[in-house]
């Protein structure tokens, strides 16, 4: 009899489509705000935390401190050493991942309903009372130094470092978030403790939660998990000044395929023209196999496996960038084709047919992003960090559809600056 009841309940709780599910904003008794989608059909919760600021909070001579600090969060906390913390996580079958980027420290967690309280208590220790013990510091420092040395010989990483340096100079955006061999070798435990206090405070925290949990349960969970964090952290980093100029930079490196990054100034997320620029980029180089760059460079000429362009509106600067790779004896033709397409788009814009296809792609693809609890939690955190309203999901496709041909072509003229494109090429390019 019990089995039969379970079967019927399962049938009744089948969920409506995601578009119909409302996001709730909840505030915990302790005053912590989060966005929640209740999704009880699978007995687990996906939790996404983001702290604004990230690796750009590194002090000038402490580059890599935030990144190393985040790498140490799971390497011993509270009463547990690194192995003890890992064993405890495995016993609960929880999953915690800790990551940092230019603008954020992010923590993604998932845990089962059956041991939720224990999982949250364990996660709390790693966020609020990490040990940063010397043994872990030295061991993880060794791993980071190995990664830095490997990056120094990876053509994609070499290109990114050179491009960022040209674009942002001494600003943190201008160097690798993981630091250099020199800076990381010099970091002390005090530096790590300071980076923790600077980056992980409640005044810069955004939270998205999806899964088998009620609003009331989540409120209590948030206070337990995050109530012990300091209320405030370091001042936010200064805006970055974009120093990029037009031209080509070659980094000589013995490898058969040249790797290229290219770009110039971009457009802010809150600019009124952002959606027009987004549609424009879909047509130029963001829309997969159908983009103009893909058609001209790959499909017609076979010069590359992939060429892409991206709008990169970061917190402190906005870039419009792209990437491509071609054999050393073909990269020069690739660069010529990209420059020509950039100029052609700036001068002639897009056609009505291209515009309609790009809108169909963007509006049709949008609901496909909501595929799983973790994905939805990440989307909700991104919306909060971009200061978007809680009903944004329902209105987003209208914003895409409102873009006109005149909008796109005006933005193409204003945004695309073929003479300002900087190419950074790593390899042994011929004929440039």
């Amino acid at each position, binding site marked *: 009899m019990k*089995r039969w009841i379970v079967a019927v309940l399962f049938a009744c709780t089948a*969920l409506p489509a*995601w578009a119909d599910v409302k996001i709730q904003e909840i505030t915990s008794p302790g005053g912590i705000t989060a966005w929640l989608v209740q999704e009880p*059909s*699978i*007995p*687990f919760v*996906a939790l996404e935390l983001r702290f604004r600021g990230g690796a750009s909070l590194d002090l000038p001579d402490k580059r890599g401190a935030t990144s190393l600090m985040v790498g140490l969060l799971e390497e011993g906390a509270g009463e547990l050493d*690194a*192995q003890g913390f*890992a*064993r405890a996580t*495995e*016993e609960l*079958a929880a*999953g915690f991942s800790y990551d940092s980027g230019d603008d954020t420290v992010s923590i993604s967690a*998932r845990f*089962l309903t059956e041991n939720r309280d224990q999982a949250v208590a364990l996660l709390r220790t790693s966020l609020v009372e990490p040990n940063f013990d010397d043994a872990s510091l030295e*061991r993880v420092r*060794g*791993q980071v*130094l*190995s990664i830095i*040395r*490997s*990056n*120094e*010989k990876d*053509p994609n990483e070499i290109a990114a470092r050179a491009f960022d340096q040209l674009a942002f100079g001494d600003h943190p955006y201008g160097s690798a978030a993981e630091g250099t061999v020199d800076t990381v070798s010099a970091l002390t435990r005090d530096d790590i403790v300071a980076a923790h206090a600077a980056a992980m405070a409640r005044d810069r925290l955004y939270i998205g939660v999806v899964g088998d949990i009620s609003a009331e349960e989540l409120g209590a969970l948030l206070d337990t998990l995050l109530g012990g964090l300091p209320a405030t952290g370091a001042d936010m980093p200064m805006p970055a000044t974009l120093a990029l100029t037009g031209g080509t930079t070659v980094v000589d490196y013995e*490898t*058969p*395929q040249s*790797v290229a990054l290219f770009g110039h100034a971009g457009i802010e997320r809150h600019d009124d023209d952002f959606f027009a620029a987004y549609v424009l980029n879909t047509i130029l180089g963001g829309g*997969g*196999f*159908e983009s103009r760059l893909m*058609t001209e460079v*790959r*499909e017609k*000429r*076979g*010069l*590359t*496996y992939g060429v892409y362009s991206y709008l990169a509106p970061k917190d402190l600067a906005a870039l419009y960038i792209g990437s491509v*790779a*071609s*054999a050393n004896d073909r990269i020069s033709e690739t660069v010529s084709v990209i420059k020509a397409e950039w100029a052609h788009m700036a001068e002639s814009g897009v056609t009505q047919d291209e515009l309609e*296809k790009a809108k*169909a*792609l*963007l*509006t*049709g*693809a*949008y*609901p*496909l992003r909501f*595929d*799983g609890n*973790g994905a939805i939690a990440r989307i909700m955190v991104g919306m909060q960090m971009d200061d978007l309203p809680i009903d944004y999901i329902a209105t987003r496709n209208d914003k895409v559809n409102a873009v006109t041909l005149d909008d796109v072509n005006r933005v193409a003229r204003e945004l695309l600056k073929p003479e300002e494109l900087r190419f950074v090429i790593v390899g042994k390019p011929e004929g440039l």
Partner: protein
Amino acid sequence: MRRILALLTIGLLAAAPARAAENVSDFTLDNGMQVVVIEDHRAPVVMHMVWYRSGSADETAGVSGVAHFLEHLLFKGTDKLEPGEFSATVAAQGGRDNAFTSYDYTAYFQRVAADRLELMMTMESDRMVNLRLGQEEILTERDVIIEERNMRTENSPGALFREQMNAAQYYNHRYGVPIIGWRHEMETLSLEDALAYYGTYYAPNNAILVVAGDVDPQDVLALAKTYYGVLPANPDLMPRDRTSEPRQTSARRMVFEDPRVAQPYVTRSYLAPERNPGAQSQAAALTMLAEILGGGSTSVLNQKLQFEQQKVIYAGAFYGGTSLDMTTFDLTVVPADGVSLQDAEDAMDAVIAAFLEEGVDQAQLDRIKMQLRASQVYARDSVESIANRYGRALTTGLTVEDVQAWPDVLQAVTEQDILDAARAVFDRKQSVTGWLTSGHATGGSQ
């Protein structure tokens, strides 16, 4: 009568818990095409996949890379579709499409709104038999796959090293040839080569349709009959009798030197048995062995070498049991600064020898089994990963029943099973040991 019915019901439920949880249905069309439907009604989305039971290891000698080359060419035209129109049509529906090739399979997929499924089937069934290729697009696309090889392999010393390791591991099986192909053979791939592979393997009796998402299994079956069911089977399709390995009797060693290497490491691969239909227990024991030895920081190799002896910065163990033929069990150690590759390799071997003496830590085995149980809960959040799991299994000789039995087979693994499997697989005569170095101080860590 009622009592018997009740018992029968309980028995069925007990026998197929995974099936119930994953909402899986399977059918076979009259022309031999298999159909698997996985329901997930949380979002109005569907993943439509066609998997062919043929990959790079089914190529004939001399045309390595042709399976993957053909995969690219399937995005060119048919009688009804212009070159590029397939992907353009998917994009116009807001969908995403792509394809991938491995040793044992080639698969094509589109992820679209659930109400566009019929259009996807129209196009995918069309290109299964109606491909039309011209000489010009062959040459351009061949340049694209060579650039793909440049990106994935030629620009990466680690990838070149793995390619040489694989070639040394297999004396007589096509698993020793890279999926993307040897460069000198890729450069001569022709229209005829591609069409020969297409004519042999692209047929409904060599294909599996996997549809996952917000769909009704009976609706999917009806559409599948309409679009795929009308295609003729290839009567000449042969069983997958590939060349097999002779007895391997000599340990192989190699040193791969490349100035682009910043971090040297040691890898050892051993020839290892794969999952087989109705006989998955040895593969299950090897799956657990890989977790015990190299799965995360609490694993035996990391605990001993990274934490206690501090000789490595990372250690790993890998076993991919979902394979049609003999697979490998791999160990990797990345030495800490100042530790030579020889010292790291010796330390790794000493830990393995001690493990075989001391046996399995029961608490560790319990933790791994708990994580496996939980992974069945987490897996339900991604219908695409379930679809991929079925596609890989069914193209490597396993059945739907094998896929559904697998979690229970894993839970049933004992310490003795693991040690027996370890002793059987850790035979140096069937192994390849490789050092990846910068070439400056072979045997050193710099």
